[in-house]
Structures are given as C-alpha cells and as structure tokens.
C-alpha cells in the first residue's frame, strides 16, 4: 500500500512513463519503462527507495510476471512493482546497474523461471549449465513429480 507521499510521486512519474499503472497493492509497469522508474524511485530524495529486497518471477500460464519489492530505509516505505512479460519472449531489462544486489536474484529467476534479463551476462546459478528447461514454469514436468 503506497503511502500518500509515494502515491503523489508515482502520479507525477506517470506523466513521463506511459505504461505506469498504480494499483492498491502494487505498481504495474512495462518492461521498457522499468529501469527509468526504479532509477527515479531510488534517486528521489523524498522517496529514497535504496534497497531492493526481493526479486522473483511467476509463471501465470499466459504470461510471466516479474516482481520487485523495494524498501526505503530512510522513510520505511515499501513498494511492490510488477512487470508482465510475454511467455514466448520473456525479455526484461536488467536492473543490476541500479541495484547491484539484483545480480544473484536475476540469475535465479532466469535459472528457474526462464526470465531473460537483457543488458547483462546471464548464467544459471542453482542448476547445472546443461539443464534443459525452467522448472518453475507450469508446463515443466519431471519423472517422479507429483501432480
């Protein structure tokens, strides 16, 4: 739930970022506008979202959603950002330059869900390099798996 200050700033940002959509519990943004949004949120002294706490992705069968959870240490604000990307072309710009802590988390989301983060070198992190498929995709099946 964005506080008043955050909601006000997000509304202002919406003018330059056409894909921005502020919901009750999260902010929806298009992949192309994501780095600009995060940069503004981090550098705005009244928001100071300086900490990327969580980054993950979910397979919703017809699309993938990448989720970013930001925290502002200074004001205690929390913000959830969601980004829908197509399943057959799952590309989204990497945010490693803004939040270096995204490195391992992006690699994990690539490894398990198959999200391709562009603008950085991507390697699997938990599974071995020769692994076939992305296990957290809903259509992934494996021998011995439960339904």
């Amino acid at each position, binding site marked *: 739930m964005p506080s008043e200050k955050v909601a006000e700033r997000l509304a202002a940002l919406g003018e330059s970022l056409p894909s921005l959509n502020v919901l009750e519990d999260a902010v929806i943004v298009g992949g192309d506008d994501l780095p600009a949004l995060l940069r503004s949120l981090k550098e705005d002294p009244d928001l100071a979202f300086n900490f990327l706490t969580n980054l993950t992705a*979910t397979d919703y069968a017809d699309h993938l959603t990448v989720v970013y959870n930001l925290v502002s240490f200074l004001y205690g604000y929390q913000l959830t950002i969601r980004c829908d990307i197509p399943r057959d072309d799952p590309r989204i710009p990497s945010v490693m330059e803004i939040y270096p802590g995204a490195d391992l988390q992006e690699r994990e989301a690539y490894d398990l869900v198959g999200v391709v983060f562009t603008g950085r070198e991507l390697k699997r992190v938990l599974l071995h390099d020769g692994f076939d498929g992305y296990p957290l995709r809903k259509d992934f099946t494996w021998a011995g798996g439960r339904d």
Partner: protein
Amino acid sequence: MNTELDMRDRLEENIKTDRYVLNMGPQHPSTHGVFRVIATLDGEVIVDAQPVCGYLHRGIEKLAEARTYTQVIPYTDRMDYLAGMLNNMGYVMAVEKLMGVEVPERAEYIRVICAELSRIASHLVAVGSYSADIGGLTGFFYTFRDREKILDLLEMASGSRLTFSYMRVGGVADDLPPEFFPAAQKLVKELPAALDEYDGLITGNEIFQARTKFVGILDAKKAIDYSISGPNLRGSGVNWDLRKARPYSVYDRFDFEVPLGQNGDCFDRFRLRMIEMRQSLRIVEQALAGLPEGTHLGKVPKVIKPPAGEVYHEIEGAKGILGYYLVSDGSPKPYRMHVRRPSFINLGVLADLVQGWKIADVVAILGSLDIVLGEVDC
C-alpha cells in the same frame, strides 16, 4: 590497511607474479557446506572470485506447489537448518497474512521465545565455526556445548532438535510443556556467563583480532546496494532490523537494542552476533515473564484455502531478511512460493569483498558472512 597496500604495491613492483585459477570447495570445511569458489589469483593476491552454488538445491519452491499449505512447513525447516523456528515463523506468518488469520497472544509469545532461542542457536554456530575458521578450534566446542542446551529446550517444545516444524498457521503445534519453563529460566540465567567466556576465548584473542579487524571491509553504501541484510548489514553501521523498523508479531512489546558495527569489517560482523545473542536473551526473558494465558492455536479452517491473491512477508531471520512470497489461486496448494533467502543474497557481495586479499582471508571473509548452504541453494 594503508601500510599493507603500500607493501603490496612494493611487492608488485619487485616480484614478477603469474595469474592462475585456484579452486576452493565444494567439499571443504571452510566453505560451511557444499559451496565452491573459483578464485583467480595474481601471485598470492585474489583478483577475482566466482561463487558457485546449487550443490544442495532440492527445488523446494517447486515441491511446495504440489503440497498443501500445511505440508510446506517441514520444507521450511530444511532451508536454514540452523534456525528452523525462524523459517517456520516467516512462512506461517505469510500464510496468515494472505488469509487474514488472527493468532492468539499466547501463541505469539511462544513463537517469539522459540524464534529468539533459534536465533541464539544460529549465532552460536556462526561464532563457533568462525572461531574454527580462524584457527581456534576450541571456540567451536564451547559454543556447541551451549547450543546443545537450546536444542534441548526446543526439543521439549517441538519434539525435534533441528527440523522443528513447530509452528502452524494460526499458532503453534502444541503448548510449551511445564518442564520447559525452569530449563528456559536456567538458560537465561547461565548463558550470559558463557558469552563472557567466549569473549575471553575468542573475541579478546590477539590472533583472532589480527585476522579479522579491518579485513573484508564492507561500507554502508555498498552493503545497501548489494541488498545485504542482517548482522552483515548492521555490521556496516546501517540500522535496519525488522524487529524494530517494522515490528511484527509482538516484538514491539519488548525492550531490546539493535547493536551496530562501525568499521564493517569481519570483526564487527562477528562481534555483532555476540551482542545480538545477549539482546535475544533479554527478549526471551521478557517473553517468559509476560507469557499470557490462553490457547496456543487460533481458529483456523481445517482445510487451509487462502483467497486468490499474493503476499510478500518478511521477518528478521538469523542471517538477515527472510521473506516469503506466496501466490494463491484459491486452491489448497500454493500456486507459487518464493523465498527471499538472506544467505543467498548476502553471497552476492563475496566476490567484491575478497578482491585484493589472500586465500586465508577468503576463509575469514566467507565465514564472517555466515551463510548456510541449505538456505543458499533452497
């Protein structure tokens, strides 16, 4: 630090060195589990280090999708197996948030008692094995001697020594048994003396200090940029402890302090864990004194079916911010579970920290980050 850099510069001028790759692990005691570091060295100095993990990956996030919400609880114990109660707590709280379940006050207090005991147990392993990493094996045995008493307590509560699975959606599995209370009071009374003993044995040791002070310095800005959390973040002087910053459960009712480091070096990270144990004991003492009467399990439907939606809940784990991201489609099984594991994310800064140091310092720096591979690999 500066004199050491000067010395290094002089060395580089006078001695011709080669670059080579040195492999550490995955099976090596200093890596605290199955973890590998591919280090590139120039002479004796590390220029690059690539962490390789995944050797203990069990696919818990995938397994959770085929289990009911209650069946997932035992899997959480097996992530950070040194602080199982905290993993339980983060998970059940996330499910409760998703469902809007009320937890009885007594259950909240029992959770806090068990969670803080678990935190102490985890920190005891951290400082003990760190002492062993640096070369003082005795410290390891002393801390494990006292950790045993905590495991005894948690065994009384849950029946298990490591994989507790004690917490339930809506409360805890069972009330604390009568024999728990005198034993817990005894621990609260006796453990500070044991901590003094470690301070004499480990913290005050000259060799230990020489090996850890001003080694692997992590400044506050870098710590935040790299999403570092827990004692590693606070060791760099950043005051961010979720128990204080965003109090959950009943933490706002207890009087305790959040210790901070100054230099962000290995010694500060170690020292912080020592002080945090004393603060955790204070919380346990207050929670034992203020434990209200009542039931240990709230009213929860037999079949746990959270409404469709998603939730992200984080608590202060022993290693840092432990977050659970759950997506429900309204069925009795989670559609998606993701765990923000502090050990995994804290590892991100390792390559940066070890650059310019030597192999022995890699052991000191890695140990100071206090990772547990069950959690890194999930």
